[in-house]
């Protein structure tokens, strides 16, 4: 009994991390963008783009690093397009975001069909290996946390770095000022357009990497619409996390754990329909959104268009 329980806990922890990592990358990227005052509705599309191009880059070259770089490049390029259209041509942030999502849903599906969609030859050769941290990995129950791949450890560093960036650096303070009141920031010489462009591009790269993690470390293949709403969950996690890195981390862990739990429910064979179990993360999303209305902590200028005087 005890050992069975331990195994279940181990599985639960492991899959919580697996489910959390992609959305946390995307949510962190979204957070950086939104702190600068730009809504990031494109997380879903960015993840999908990252997932596909990481997979394709890896498929062609056999190199995981190239896969990662492809995802980052796709994110950067998309971020640049978003920046130019939103900041220079004053396109609606909502419409551009949704547009990107629809665009990548179609594009990745189409490309995937072109390169041939079946068989082992279209699978990523090797999954990214785990890095085992000596001693720590032997701790019962939570040892599983210390045998993760490099992208997971990188994410931990990123979360800590982002938190410090916003609270302990001058450029972080300026970026927040741009999101709260761009006119006030501009009046003290902060370049609003430059800050927002950087935030959008970096944020988009992280979101795309979140998608890349799915193909490079979890699925080994690309499937049409494989992101399947995770971008929107990341979007929600930002709101749920009240626009702080720590909050976003917790928010994503909640979603990750809920998804993992719905797996366990099926494995262990608790007698509820598996569809019901699958609904759990989405129900949490809805409840979180309803509860967060009116509260928020959102940057004051979030979503508002900036016109230079």
């Amino acid at each position, binding site marked *: 009994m005890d050992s069975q329980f331990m195994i279940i806990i181990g599985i639960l922890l492991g899959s919580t991390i697996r489910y959390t990592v992609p959305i946390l990358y995307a949510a962190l990227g979204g957070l950086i963008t939104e702190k600068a005052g730009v809504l990031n509705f494109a997380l879903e599309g960015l993840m999908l783009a990252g997932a596909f191009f990481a997979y394709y880059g890896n498929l062609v070259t056999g190199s995981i690093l190239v896969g990662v770089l492809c995802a980052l490049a796709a994110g950067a390029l998309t971020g640049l397009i978003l920046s130019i259209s939103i900041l220079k041509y004053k396109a609606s942030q909502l419409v551009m975001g949704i547009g990107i999502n629809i665009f990548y849903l179609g594009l990745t599906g189409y490309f995937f069909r072109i390169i041939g969609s079946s068989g082992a030859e279209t699978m990523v050769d090797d999954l990214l290996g785990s890095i085992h941290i000596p001693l720590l990995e032997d701790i019962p129950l939570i040892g599983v946390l210390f045998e993760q791949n490099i992208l997971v450890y990188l994410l931990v560093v990123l979360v800590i770095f982002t938190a410090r960036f916003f609270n302990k650096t*001058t450029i*972080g*303070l300026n970026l927040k000022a741009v999101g*709260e009141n761009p006119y006030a*920031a501009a009046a003290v010489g902060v370049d609003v357009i430059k800050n927002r462009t950087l935030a959008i591009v970096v944020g988009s790269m992280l979101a795309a990497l979140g998608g890349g993690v799915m193909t490079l470390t979890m699925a080994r293949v690309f499937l049409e619409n494989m992101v399947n709403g995770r971008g929107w969950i990341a979007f929600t996690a930002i709101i749920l996390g009240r626009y702080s890195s720590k909050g976003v981390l917790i928010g994503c862990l909640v979603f990750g754990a809920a998804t993992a739990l719905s797996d366990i429910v099926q494995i262990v064979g608790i007698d509820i329909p598996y569809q019901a179990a699958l609904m759990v993360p989405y129900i949490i999303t809805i409840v979180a959104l309803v509860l967060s209305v*009116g509260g928020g902590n959102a940057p004051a200028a979030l979503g508002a268009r900036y016109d230079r005087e």
Partner: protein
Amino acid sequence: MSNRKDVILEIRNLTKTFPGVIANKDVDLDIERGEVHTLLGENGAGKSTLMKAIYGIYGMDSGTVKYNGNPLDAKSPKDAIAVGLGMIHQHFLLVQEFTVLENIIMGLKADKGIHLDLGKHRSRVEEIVERFEIRLDLDEKVKNLSVGMQQKVEIVKVLYRNAKFLILDEPTSVLTPQESQGLFGIIERLKKEGATVIFISHKLDEVLQISDRITVLRDGEVIETVVNKDLRKDDLSAMMVGREVTLDVDMPEVELGPDGLELDKISLVNPGGKTVLKDVSFSIRKGEILGIAGIDGNGQEELAQVLWGTLKASGGSIKLHGSTVDDLSTRKRMDMGMAYIPADRKKEGLVGTFQVSENIVLNSYYKPHFIKGLGQDFGAIREYSERLVQEYNVKTPALSVWAKNLSGGNQQKLILSRAIEGNNDVFIIAQPTWGLDIGAIEFVYRKISELKEAGKTILLISTDLEEVRSLSDRMCVIFEGEVSETFRVQDKQVAEIGLLMAGGKRREE
């Protein structure tokens, strides 16, 4: 250049145009080191534009600027700040969610790297605050500060950037009389420390109080620079407008009738659960003007809307001509003779993309004389509009022009015309002269006095205390949704009223 005087800022032939408008034309101006120099002019005279051009917000079309003898061609505020200029804008540019300290230091580079050394900044800011005797809690969030305090944050912000030359753009427009005096104290202090101050204003009293020299601008040009000695207000306003004007209205003595409008314990809770109006009670008789003074955002707008029927009161009762109207729609109240001149004429007063004539009948298009068959009688509407435009001197190229293309003064005349011509007898008038030039203000005041003479019931809501005092018979002060006792205008000093506007107690030194 004759350099007997120590000129710190020298402007020559500065011209700045916006599409279709000349904002500044061939402006020459010398500012001397250590003086308080006022730029005086009406709205649109080009005083703010001139300063924003120098400060790098707009840039200029032609002309030269020298600061401390060196050419200054600021491409962005950054350049101006770098040489020691600091501008405090009419609308504060602060981050509400940040603390005072964060607001002061934002935008600055770290001494080295990117590390934000709050402790070091704090001690430096404290030094400045002490030197200039400005009391500020550095850890308070700006959103919790009064407007007067926020202004101090702005001042410290520019001082922290080593500004030696401060430009204050209409700094008193949002302050209570006490807060204004506090600001003048700081300006005196700045002067003592050797700073030069440009003060932009159109309020003659304060200009005379604080300035060393005054430059009057009109239509983008410098009219004259005068030393502030033995000047009278009338001289200045004549220079501003280009002709003799007087805003000292002689209100007619009117036999007061019965109550036209009565409020009994009106209260309002907004959707967020916050009490916006609390037990507001007063009554106004026919032929009487009751003024409500107070700083913007203390419930004035909501009070007007509750009276007008666009917001429903949470409690209390309103009587029009003695009969209760609480459950009546706005249309019904209009039919009972109520008229409303809203504070925000663009948002509530006009449909910007409707023609002038359509806006003129916005409150009466449904009346029988504008109806023909199932549609409108456009002939009658045109005739009526033509008459009003002429009688109220609304300057418009044609009746078919969009209302948003009229100047503020002409928009207000349009709104006044339709309210007055509608044969109404209870008027709710909010901020009637906001953003108008003196000529238009004169017109509005005359119309209000005519309404009083005709025995109308008038509620005047304004954040301009002088306006309330000069027009009203009785007045009261609104603060955080509560109104004070009403009193006769001559019964209280400005200082006393100022205290009421700040909530009765002195919140600041």
